[in-house]
């Protein structure tokens, strides 16, 4: 007996009149995918605010968010790999790209973007690589030998760290950061285009989709960088305070969170939040006002079936509440952390309401589909496209960042 598996059958509940082949084909991993690319774009834009626009107050944040955006970048294609029915064939996107498809841009945009980020990191940390490679020379021990090999490879054979060479580096960093912003926006804007260009889907098809996606991407990226920064710095401070042998770094060196830095970054966050929220509202108002053929079913989804998801969880908890929390004067660390968590939750719900909400109604406009996300997996599909798969994707960038940070110390290198 051949292995027969109907993709989507397990987690789709159909209601009223739907076509027989309709299921929730794009599930949680397609929610995770724009969330991840959004975080990448946002983290990079945050780091570029310092490098390009000279926002000096963001200096420390910039280094961290640059390395973190690279960790996110490596993790960003993973949801797609989890989602593909033939993950090993995913590489065909590089081999036979069909450029009339929004997804085919992935190969080129993703490659270009990762090269830009990697090069920028290289220029920022080149001096450090060279210093490490030289310092580790002749030291005993396997660990030192391995690290020396890594650093030697990372120098790419360029050992010139004279004043003149470093000045050149600074210039290139500025250029790369500048070029990176439009590419980052393109990377995420095209993720929005993937949805916005599907004319068969009444909820997705709007030219505003890429712009909405970019705005919410920057919001989520900034929020995640701030949050990670606060958590790591506070944890370091906490560990040094409780540690009896602070042999590596002193409390002064770490210094904990600088509240000024957090407050200033949150101003940028608020700005982008307003833009994202306004665009989403415009889209909703426009749909209701023009009320084309699909509006009847869309209205029943937006104001009926998905009311809690959209208006309470996404707009209420995810947008308005953190907005108030951030705007109230004298923000404390704790209040900011709460607001940032809510912002991230709001962006996740926005992705959910687009991806899952777009499949909540049938192409017949006369039926509904409900997504029952698999919680406990009982086969590979329900693992990949269930809660556990999403969580795995969610923690992946943090694991990668931990690894990268061994080599490229983005938090203690002042």
């Amino acid at each position, binding site marked *: 007996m051949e292995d027969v598996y109907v993709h989507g059958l397990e987690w789709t509940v159909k209601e009223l009149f739907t076509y027989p082949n309709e299921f929730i084909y794009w599930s949680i991993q397609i929610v995770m995918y724009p969330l991840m690319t959004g975080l990448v774009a946002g983290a990079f834009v945050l780091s570029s605010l310092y490098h390009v626009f000279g926002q000096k107050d963001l200096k420390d944040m910039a280094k961290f968010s640059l390395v973190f955006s690279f960790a996110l970048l490596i993790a960003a294609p993973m949801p797609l790999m989890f989602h593909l029915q033939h993950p090993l064939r995913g590489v065909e996107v*590089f*081999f*036979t790209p069909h450029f009339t498809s929004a997804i085919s841009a992935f190969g080129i945009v993703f490659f270009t973007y990762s090269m830009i980020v990697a090069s920028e990191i*290289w220029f920022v940390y080149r001096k450090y690589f060279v210093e490490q490679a030289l310092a580790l020379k002749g030291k005993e021990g396997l660990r030192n030998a391995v690290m020396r090999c890594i650093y030697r490879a990372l120098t*790419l054979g360029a050992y010139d760290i004279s004043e003149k060479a470093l000045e050149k580096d600074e210039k290139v960093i500025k250029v790369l950061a500048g070029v990176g912003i439009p590419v980052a926006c393109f990377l995420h804007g095209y993720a929005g285009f993937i949805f916005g260009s599907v004319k068969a889907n009444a909820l997705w098809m709007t030219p505003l989709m890429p712009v909405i996606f970019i705005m919410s991407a920057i919001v989520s990226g900034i929020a995640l960088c701030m949050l990670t920064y606060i958590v790591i710095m506070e944890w370091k401070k906490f560990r040094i305070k409780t540690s009896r042998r602070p042999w590596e770094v002193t409390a002064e060196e770490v210094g904990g969170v600088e509240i000024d830095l957090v407050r200033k970054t949150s101003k940028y966050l608020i700005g982008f939040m307003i833009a994202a929220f306004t665009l989403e509202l415009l889209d909703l108002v426009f749909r209701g006002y023009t009320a084309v053929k699909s509006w009847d079913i869309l209205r029943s989804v937006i104001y009926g079936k998905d009311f809690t998801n959209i208006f309470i969880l996404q707009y209420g908890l995810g947008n308005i509440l953190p907005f108030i929390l951030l705007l109230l004067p004298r923000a404390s660390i704790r209040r900011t952390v709460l607001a940032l968590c809510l912002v991230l939750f709001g962006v996740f719900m926005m992705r959910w309401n687009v991806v899952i909400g777009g499949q909540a109604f049938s192409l017949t406009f006369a039926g509904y589909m409900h997504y029952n996300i698999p919680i406990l997996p009982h086969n590979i599909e329900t693992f990949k496209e269930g809660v556990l798969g999403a969580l795995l994707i969610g923690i992946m960038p943090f694991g990668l960042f931990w690894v990268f940070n061994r080599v490229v110390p983005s938090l203690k290198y002042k």
Partner: protein
Amino acid sequence: MRSHVWRPLFVALAVVGLILIARAFVVPPDFGVYERGFMYGYHRRSNEKEWEQFKVKYRGKQYCMDCHPDKYESNMSSKHKVIQCENCHGPAIDHPEDPPKLTVDRSRKLCLRCHTKLPYPSSLRGKLKGINPEEHNPDMECSTCHNPHKPDMEGWS
């Protein structure tokens, strides 16, 4: 060009080169743009042939007639002449070699596909002779009384 500034670019170009080399080996040689242009006709040409060579399973009434002329004649002189043999007998494929015997669907459900009375105006279904399956001898096989090959005559002859 001897400046260290260009080194990351060389790394990037090397990766692109690797992808291009891999591409030359992995992509089938007949993959390209054909009649319908790049938007609709970008594909591996030999796949068209593969689909054309897909196995035919439903062979049609003429194929059955060659060996079963009596059944064919009897059926063709009745109202059921419009129905393909294989609709009830299953696909012939390479019968009688493979499969040597066809499984006939004799279930009530098969007949009810057309003969459950559905009073639908503006549809041919409303004009077909039909029964209410719950009232019309619910426990009996249709073929007990009706000859499926020649339903005009009640019973078997």
